[in-house]
């Protein structure tokens, strides 16, 4: 610390003394960044699992800054969790520079040293990303080089993954090639059909000293993809495999993994349709074979379900099962024309979505080995056969209509099935719920509006029925809202509970300040013109966001 302090002073004197010289050398550069701080003062509350903490108050904050000058870029993010807000992993506790990088790029080459985020294809075998409000960051720390030449982009990287305030043990090496076929030959440039091909290879090295099992130190995964576009049609597909990788999440089986994702779409003005299918078998890929949960994922297997923005619709979200799932999702969005009987004066938008996810088929490898037994090949799986356990399904329909210049209405119905054991890891009963939502906007003056949102969730399982009402007032950049969430509970199992919450805030250009008081359930909250994920809390909260 002493050394850095000395360096600080020396550089302070130097840089201010020679500002003119520096400005000449680095002149024309730009500095931009963003800042966010969330502070919460806690009241003890056992119902929502928010305990009073000894520090009384928790703060999460970051300050990110980027400097760009012609082809050069540098950036860093200072992060602080003192202590982390409840609902965030306690391993975040601390403060320091969690992210820093240097980057040079021109038309052909792009070199990054330090932390970076990268995604190969759909991310199936490599994706590093950050979701600050969810407390997630698996950035890669190392070197990445990208090279571009006529229709071809090559990416190569070697790095370790960020693991809270340290790095994961695995060394990640990866290459990816993306080819735009139409750009190869001039004659194809204006062809009606556009074709893209891609291939990626990722390897993890981690020493193995297991006393029982002989484990592969190098685990390789590869994936190939194709994208086709022709007029109103599009088709995408990615296929990936991973060699045997006994790990904590697959209970140490030696089976290799594979995954297939495909999507077909048709769309034209006023109509959008898509259908997606996926099958994933033993593809949980991490930079530490002993990790589970949200720690150190290298590959990203998304949940192929709608991401809902209403709190009760988002109450039972599907947790993607990278070690085995077979799913389907289809979406139809349609605009009923203006000035028709069904469409009304301004037209009506209809949005229908259905998704389902099941287990994959599994059978014994031989009579004497149980399915999933550690140290064996685990199980056999028939690729085209559906497993017999349903993990999740969601049918939802949403209708939006502008009634007049002043009134807007959205109505939504949703039916969800949620497998408790798979999604939350505890015993049955599985949840079957019906949800109804009405969302009404009244713009009574050009800059003033009232927003009423009513939601109800009906279920006989888990914690029973829920209802929520929100009234929000907006005036220029100012907003105030009151939310009352009520859980009816289940006689003899769950007591009923109220969650009253009041919030107000002000947005000026890219700075936003909000203040809230009351009891809040964790989940997604869309209020005052933005949506964000929030942890469970009871007490007083203050949030500041700013970009510059």
């Amino acid at each position, binding site marked *: 610390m002493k050394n850095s302090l000395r360096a600080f002073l020396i550089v302070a004197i130097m840089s201010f003394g020679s500002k003119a010289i520096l400005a000449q050398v680095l002149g024309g550069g730009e500095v931009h960044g963003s800042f966010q701080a969330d502070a919460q003062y806690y009241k003890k509350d056992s119902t929502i699992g928010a305990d009073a903490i000894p520090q009384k108050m928790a703060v999460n904050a970051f300050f990110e800054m*980027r400097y760009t000058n012609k082809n050069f870029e540098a950036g860093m993010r200072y992060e602080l969790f003192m202590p982390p807000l409840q609902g965030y992993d306690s391993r975040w506790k601390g403060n320091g520079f969690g992210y820093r990088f240097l980057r040079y790029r021109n038309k052909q080459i792009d070199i990054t040293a330090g932390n970076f985020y990268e995604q190969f294809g759909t991310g199936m075998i490599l994706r590093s990303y950050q979701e600050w409000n969810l407390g997630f960051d698996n950035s890669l720390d190392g070197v990445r080089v990208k090279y571009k030449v006529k229709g071809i982009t090559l990416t190569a990287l070697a790095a370790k993954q960020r693991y809270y305030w340290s790095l994961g043990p695995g060394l990640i090496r990866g290459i990816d090639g993306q080819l735009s076929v139409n750009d190869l030959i001039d004659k194809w440039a204006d062809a009606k059909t556009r074709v893209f091909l891609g291939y990626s290879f990722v390897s993890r090295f981690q020493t193995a000293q297991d006393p029982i099992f002989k484990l592969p130190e190098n685990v390789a995964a590869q994936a190939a993809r194709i994208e086709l576009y022709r007029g109103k049609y599009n088709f995408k597909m990615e296929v990936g495999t991973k060699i045997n990788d006994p790990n904590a999440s697959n209970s140490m089986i030696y089976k290799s993994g594979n995954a297939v994702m495909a999507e077909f779409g048709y769309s034209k003005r006023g109509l959008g349709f898509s259908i997606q299918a996926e099958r994933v078998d033993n593809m949980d890929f991490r930079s530490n074979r002993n990790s589970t949960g949200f720690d150190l994922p290298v590959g990203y297997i998304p949940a192929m379900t709608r991401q809902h923005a209403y709190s009760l619709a988002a109450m039972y979200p599907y947790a993607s099962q990278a070690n085995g799932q077979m799913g389907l999702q289809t979406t139809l969005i349609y605009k009923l024309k203006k000035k028709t009987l069904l469409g009304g004066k301004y037209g009506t938008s209809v949005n229908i979505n259905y998704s389902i996810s099941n287990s994959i088929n599994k059978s014994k490898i031989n009579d004497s080995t149980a399915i999933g037994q550690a140290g064996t090949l685990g199980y056999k799986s028939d690729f085209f056969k559906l497993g017999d356990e349903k993990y999740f399904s969601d049918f939802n329909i949403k209708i939006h209509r502008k009634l007049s210049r002043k009134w807007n209405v959205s109505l939504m119905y949703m039916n969800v099935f949620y497998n408790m054991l798979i999604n939350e890891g505890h015993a049955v009963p599985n949840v079957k719920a019906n949800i109804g939502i009405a969302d009404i906007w009244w713009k009574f003056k050009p800059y003033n509006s009232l927003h009423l949102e009513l939601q109800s969730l009906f279920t006989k399982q888990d914690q029973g029925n829920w209802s929520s009402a929100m009234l929000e007032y907006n005036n220029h950049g100012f907003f105030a809202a009151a939310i009352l969430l009520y859980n009816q509970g289940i006689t003899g199992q769950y007591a009923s509970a109220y969650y009253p919450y009041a919030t107000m805030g002000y947005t000026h250009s890219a700075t936003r300040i909000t203040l809230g008081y009351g009891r809040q359930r964790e989940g997604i909250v869309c209020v005052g013109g933005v949506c964000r994920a929030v942890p469970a809390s009871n007490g007083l909260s203050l949030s500041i966001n700013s970009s510059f």
Partner: protein
Amino acid sequence: MKKTQGLLFLLILILMGSFTTDAKRTLPKVDVKTLDGKIVNTSSFQNNGNPIIISFWATWCKPCVQELTTIADVYDDWREETGVKLIAISVDNSRTSGGVLPLVNGKDWDYEVYLDENGDFKRAMGVGLVPHTFLLNGKGEIVWQHTSFTEGSELELINLVRKLKKGESISN
């Protein structure tokens, strides 16, 4: 770790020292994807010397969809009057990005839409919460930005575009 912190302090100071306020902010050079798979660099965004609105949004973000739906109703008038162009940047990741094209067409939006699947452009622009809207003048300089959408925000936006069109200078 302490050593890195020291180095970082050094870097901060160099950055501060070289910070020149007279430089107008322009778009960073980041690759984004069109809805038909093409890779496009954001530095190539242009609108024949007319203003550009860049709106960061996501399919799961209600206020974002509300903003783009509201503007869609008046977009033809806006274009005719001011020549402004709206570029919508979807920050949907690979979980939800498949829903972008059906939504854009299903809602009959007439915008230039790009995918920023892993958030590279979003980070380069310092965008935290969506919706986040930037306004560029005819020279491609970023002159104004705003986060969140509530009813009436679109009126403020078009008023600023009109000012730009008249050659008045605006700032946050």
